[in-house]
């Protein structure tokens, strides 16, 4: 029983990782209506940014804002050069962003070579502390939980407590009328795409120390993020919290009881069943109108 509780706590850090990874995807899909197939690669670019910051002597705390800016800029370039022309054609945005992902993998491999990069955690987050169970709980995992909460709060403020957020919600609800009220809807899309991309960059920066950095590292995070959105929906940020919470906890506990393959499989079956009951996810979603 005690170890189940430990696993439950461990689960929190898995939940945190899912939230960090998924929120950028959720923002871009929920607001701009684009399913960003390059999401995993945006995370990967964020992780390489952290690796570079590390080699220049910086740590994760410095890498977070740098990765945000680098990947936000990348998102801006992708949006201005490609996405802005095809927003209302979902299939084409899917293919275009997928292509962007492939290009990013190739380009990063050309720049950084095939070898893996390792990014250390900041010194003060080394080691761990003992909980009720036997295994020590690493400080860095606690840090991830804190970061997840901070990211969700910042995203909440941007979307629900700022002028930009007001415009975003108006555009999402009634694009034509928002334009008729004087809102430059294309600019709102652009800013939101860059912001969501930047969040993916932050995900890469904070996930780099728990994973070796490679050009293909983003893929599993992208898959997990899509599962979170399918289950939680993107109608509200609660979708990300609920999706991450259910998947993260279920996977951790089931993997402990059985093993990680069966754990993942059971979670997958659970998601398939859940979307039969909630076809738009627990918190719904908006189609671009």
């Amino acid at each position, binding site marked *: 029983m005690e170890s189940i509780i430990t696993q439950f706590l461990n689960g929190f850090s898995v939940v945190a990782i899912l939230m960090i990874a998924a929120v950028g995807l959720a923002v871009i899909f929920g607001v701009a209506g684009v399913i960003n197939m390059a999401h995993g690669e945006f995370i990967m670019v964020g992780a390489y940014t952290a690796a570079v910051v590390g080699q220049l002597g910086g740590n994760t705390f410095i890498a977070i804002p740098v990765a945000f800016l680098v990947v936000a800029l990348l998102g801006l370039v992708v949006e201005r050069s490609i996405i802005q022309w095809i927003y209302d054609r979902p299939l084409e945005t899917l293919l275009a962003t997928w292509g962007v992902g492939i290009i990013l993998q190739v380009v990063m491999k050309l720049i950084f070579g095939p070898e893996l990069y390792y990014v250390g955690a900041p010194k003060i987050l080394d080691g761990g502390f003992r909980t009720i169970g036997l295994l020590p709980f690493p400080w860095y995992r606690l840090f991830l939980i804190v970061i997840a909460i901070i990211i969700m709060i910042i995203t909440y403020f941007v979307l629900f407590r700022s002028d930009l957020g007001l415009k975003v919600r108006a555009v999402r609800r009634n694009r034509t009328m928002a334009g008729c*009220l004087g809102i430059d809807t294309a600019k709102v899309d652009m800013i939101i795409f860059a912001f969501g991309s930047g969040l993916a960059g932050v995900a890469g920066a904070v996930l780099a120390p728990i994973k070796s950095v490679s050009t293909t590292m983003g893929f599993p995070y992208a898959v997990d993020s899509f599962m979170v959105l399918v289950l939680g929906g993107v109608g509200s940020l609660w979708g990300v919290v609920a999706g991450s919470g259910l998947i993260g906890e279920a996977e951790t506990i089931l993997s402990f009881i059985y093993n990680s393959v069966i754990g993942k499989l059971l979670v997958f079956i659970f998601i398939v069943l859940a979307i039969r009951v909630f076809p738009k996810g627990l918190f719904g979603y908006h189609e671009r109108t």
Partner: protein
Amino acid sequence: MGLEVQGIDTFYGTSHILHGVTLSVPDGAMISVLGRNGVGKSTLLKSIIGINPPQTGTIHFNDADVTKEKTHEHVRAGISYIPQGREIIPDISVYENLVIAMRGKNNRSNQIPAFIFEYFPALEPIQKRKGGILSGGQQQQLAIARALIQEPNLLLMDEPTEGLQPSVVAEIDTIIKRIHTERNCSILLIEQNLDFIRDVTQQFAIMDSGQIVEEGNIEKLTDEFAGQYLSV
């Protein structure tokens, strides 16, 4: 000065809706447009505000060619639009509906100007309410307030009395007249209600099959005259 619509043709996909519409709204004028359902009245306003811009013809506002401008650029230039059906953003509050209209005009204040609640005292106590749960009359007041807060030079109104009870229609009537005289704003008003048109506007235009077929001073708009175009 004012609005000059010159021979515009507007389409929805391949259906040709407006056929060479020419209309001018001089500075300070108040003109109503009437016509049967489906003749293209709303389409005319949508062409002017840029939701569905014309394929040929030109639109000038205060001597600038605005034919190809985006909707938000029209708003910045001084044209505000009150659509048919009001289009209040339902899941944000009355206050936020007003604030977003101010932002659309680059007004960064969080304070709703006092004149708004002078025109619409009924909105003041319900500012926190979500737009979607307002009554039809309240929504129409909010829709007008939202346009008025932008202090436009030209107001485009699409059937502001549609579906409202007579007492509310009378209130809207008074408010439109006040806006016209007090806010230094010309008005292009789409309406079906003849008494209302005769009470608030000085000039009219009648549309039929995507064209303007009659224009003139309001005295000319007798029941018999309008009947030729409005009865089926």
